[in-house]
C-alpha cells in the first residue's frame, strides 16, 4: 500500500520501479501497478499497422491508465540506422520492434532486457522463440510471423487462357505458366510473375531452399553449393526469358505496384502484403497458391518480435506494455486488422478471415514446409554482400555460378570476422 501511494505521488517513481524490478533476481521481475505513472516510447516501422497498434495502446491504457505510450514510426529503410545510433548513446526506445537479421547484434551487445516469465514460450511457434533467443535467454516476444506464397490474379490467368496453379505445382509448371502469360499479354505490358529481389526473403532464399540448398549452415555460407546455384539460376532464368520484369524495371516500379495494378499475374510475397492487397482494386481476382517446389517444398519463416531496452528508465512500465503486446488480446487486434499474421497460437483464424482469398495457405506452409530465416551474429554484413553481388547474377551480366562462388567467399570472410 505504502509503495502504491508513493508511486502515485512522487515524480521519481521511475527510480523506485527500477529499484524494485532489479531487486528480484532471475528474470522474474515484478510487473507494474495499475496506477503506475510513466511515459514510455514504442518504436516500429510499418505504417500500415498503425491502426492496430493505436488500438492496442488504447486497450493497454484501459488497464494502465497512467502509462503514456508514445509511438514512433520510422520507415524501414531508416529504422535500424536510427536504432543503432540510439543504442550507441543508450537512448533506445523503451519497447521496439526487432527482426531476425538484427536481433543477435543487439542481444550479443547487451542492449536488450530478457523477457519476463509472464510471457510463456508455449504460446508461440518454436521457430520464433529460437530466433529470438541468445545464449539460452529469451529476449523477443514474438509478434507475428510470415511465410511466403504466390498471390495470383485470376482475371489475368483467364485472359491468357492459363490454368490456375495447383497446390503441389513444381518449378517447371510455375515457369511455364509465367512464360505463357508474358507471351499472351506482353503487348499490354503484363508479365507472368514479379519478383522482389532486394532481399532474399521474398524469392531467392526460398528457391535456394527448394533446390535443397542452404543460405547459411554451421556458420558457413551455403551459396557456393550446386543446389544454391540452381536456386539462383531459376530466378535469373525467369528474367532472362521475359517471364518476369528486369531489375531495372523493378527499381522503377516496385513489385507490389506491378501486381496491384494488374501488370503482373503472379507475385511472390508474404503475409505482410495482405494489408495492401485486401484493400486493393483487384481484391476479388486474387488467389493464393503455395510456393512451387523443386527438390522439396520450402519457404523461409520469419517473424518480428517486440523487445525491451536494457537501458530503459521505466523498466516496470516497459515490461507491462511488452507483456500486453505479447498477450492473446493484442494478437487478436492485429489479426482482425489484417495487418499481420499474429504469432500467438490459436489467434490466426481472425487473420485468415480478414481477406476473401485463401490465407490458410500461409499457415499450412508454416506448419509443413517452413525453414528458419537465415541469421548470424552480424547478418547485416553479409546481407550487404548479397545486395552488392547478386544483381549481376540475376540480370545475366555475370554467370550465376561465378557470382555465387564470390559471394560465398566474401560471406565466409564476414562470418569469420564475427567471432573475433
Amino acid at each position: 500500500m505504502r509503495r502504491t501511494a508513493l508511486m502515485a505521488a512522487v515524480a521519481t517513481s521511475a527510480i523506485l520501479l527500477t529499484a524494485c524490478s532489479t531487486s528480484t533476481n532471475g528474470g522474474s521481475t515484478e510487473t507494474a501497478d495499475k496506477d503506475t505513472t510513466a511515459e514510455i516510447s514504442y518504436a516500429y516501422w510499418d505504417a500500415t499497422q498503425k491502426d492496430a497498434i493505436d488500438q492496442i495502446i488504447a486497450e493497454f491504457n484501459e488497464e494502465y491508465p497512467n502509462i503514456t505510450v508514445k509511438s514512433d514510426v520510422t520507415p524501414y529503410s531508416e529504422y535500424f540506422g536510427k536504432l543503432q545510433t540510439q543504442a550507441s548513446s543508450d537512448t533506445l526506445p523503451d519497447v521496439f520492434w526487432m527482426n531476425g537479421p538484427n536481433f543477435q547484434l543487439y542481444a550479443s551487445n547487451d542492449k536488450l532486457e530478457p523477457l519476463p516469465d509472464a510471457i510463456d514460450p508455449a504460446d508461440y511457434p518454436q521457430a520464433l522463440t529460437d530466433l529470438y533467443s541468445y545464449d539460452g535467454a529469451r529476449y523477443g516476444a514474438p509478434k507475428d510471423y510470415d511465410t511466403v506464397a504466390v498471390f495470383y490474379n485470376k482475371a489475368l490467368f483467364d485472359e491468357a487462357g492459363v490454368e490456375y496453379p495447383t497446390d503441389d505445382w513444381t518449378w517447371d509448371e510455375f515457369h511455364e505458366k509465367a512464360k505463357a502469360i508474358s507471351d499472351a499479354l506482353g503487348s499490354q505490358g503484363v508479365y507472368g510473375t514479379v519478383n522482389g529481389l532486394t532481399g532474399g526473403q521474398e524469392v531467392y532464399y526460398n528457391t535456394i531452399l527448394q533446390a535443397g540448398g542452404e543460405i547459411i549452415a554451421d556458420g558457413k555460407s551455403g551459396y557456393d553449393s550446386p543446389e544454391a546455384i540452381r536456386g539462383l539460376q531459376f530466378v535469373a532464368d525467369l528474367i532472362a526469358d521475359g517471364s518476369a520484369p528486369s531489375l531495372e524495371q523493378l527499381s522503377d516500379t516496385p513489385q507490389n505496384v506491378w501486381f496491384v495494378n494488374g501488370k503482373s499475374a503472379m507475385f511472390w510475397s508474404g503475409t505482410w502484403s495482405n494489408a495492401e492487397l485486401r484493400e486493393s482494386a483487384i481484391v476479388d481476382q486474387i488467389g493464393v497458391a503455395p510456393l512451387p517446389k523443386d527438390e522439396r517444398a520450402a519457404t523461409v519463416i520469419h517473424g518480428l518480435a517486440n523487445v525491451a531496452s536494457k537501458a530503459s528508465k521505466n523498466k516496470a512500465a516497459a515490461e507491462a506494455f511488452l507483456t500486453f503486446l505479447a498477450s492473446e488480446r493484442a494478437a487478436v487486434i492485429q489479426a482482425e486488422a489484417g495487418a499481420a499474421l499474429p504469432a500467438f497460437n490459436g489467434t490466426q483464424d481472425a487473420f485468415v478471415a480478414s481477406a476473401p482469398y485463401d490465407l490458410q495457405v500461409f499457415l499450412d506452409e508454416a506448419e509443413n514446409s517452413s525453414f528458419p530465416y537465415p541469421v548470424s551474429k552480424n547478418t547485416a554484413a553479409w546481407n550487404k554482400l548479397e545486395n552488392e553481388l547478386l544483381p549481376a547474377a540475376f540480370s545475366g551480366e555475370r554467370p550465376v555460378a561465378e557470382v555465387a562462388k564470390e559471394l560465398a567467399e566474401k560471406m565466409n570472410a564476414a562470418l569469420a570476422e564475427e567471432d573475433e
Partner: protein
Amino acid sequence: MTQTAVHGTGAAEDAAPGPGPSRGTGRLRSDIGWAMMFVLPLFAGVALFYLWPIVRNLWFSFTEWGPFGDSKWVGVDNYVDLFTDATMGRAILNTFGYTAILLCGIPLAVYFASLLNRPGLRFANVFRAAFFLPYVAMPAAIAMVWRIIFNGDFGILNYALSLVGITGPSWLSTEGVALVAVGIVGVWISLGFNLIILSAGMKGIPPELYEAASLDGATRWRQFLTITVPLLTPSIFFVSVMTVISGFQLFDLLYALMGTTNPAMEKTQSVVFYFFTNIKTGDNGYAAAIGVVILVLVGVFTALQFRLQRKWVTYV
C-alpha cells in the same frame, strides 16, 4: 554610438598603462578587443558547427568503429583501403561526370539570362519566376515528379519516345544512362539559381557599349559574344565555382531519384553517396576518410579554378 564607445574605452585604457609610448598600440589592442567581441558570436557558431566537426571527422578517419559506437585507432588503414577500393575510384569518376554535366548547364544559363534581359521583354518577371521555381521547390517533390517522368515502363518520357518508334530505357536504373538522367535534373534545378546571378551581372554592363556596338553595325549575336560574355566572366566564374562545389556534393538527387536499392546505384553513386552507404552499414571510420577525400577534392578544384580564372576572367 559604437564609434564613441570604442574611443571612450580606448581612452580609459590608455590612462592605465601610463604615459607616452604605449598610446598607439594600446588603441590598436583595444580596437582588436572590440572587433573580436563582434566576431565572436559568429566565430563560435562556425567553430562549433563547422570547424570542430571537421577536426573530429579527421580524427574518426583514423579509427574503426564497432556496431555501437566503440572505436579503435587503426592509423592510415582506412586511407590505404580507400586508395585500392575500385568502388571509390568509380564514385570519384561519377562525381566528375555529374559535375561536368552541371557545368554544361552554365552556357545554357548565360544564353537564357541574355534572353531574359532583352530590353522590352514582356512578362520578364513571370519567366524569371518560372525558371527560379525548381530551385526553391522541395527536392523530394521534384524527385517524385521526375521519377514518374523517367519511369521505364509507365513514364511520360518513354511514352513520348514510343510515339516516334523509340523504345526508351529505364532511365534511372540503367547503368550509364542513370547518371545522365540525374545530371539533366541537376541542370534543370540549378538553372534558376545561375540565371539570377548572371542576370544581376548583366545589369552591371553599361548600356552605352551596346549602343556603340549597334551603331557600328554589330548584330545581336555579335554583341552577345563580344560584349555580354566577356563582361559577364566574373559572374560566370562565380557560378562555375558554386557549380563545381555543389556537383561534388551530389547526394540528395541520387537518393531521391534512384533509391538505395537501385541495381544501377553501385556503378552510378557519387562520393558523398558512397560516404552515406558506409555510414549506413556502420563503417563510420571509413566514411570519415571518404569525407576527408571530398574536402580535399573540393579544396583542390576550387583553388585550381581561382588560379585559372586569371586566364579568362575580365574585370572592368
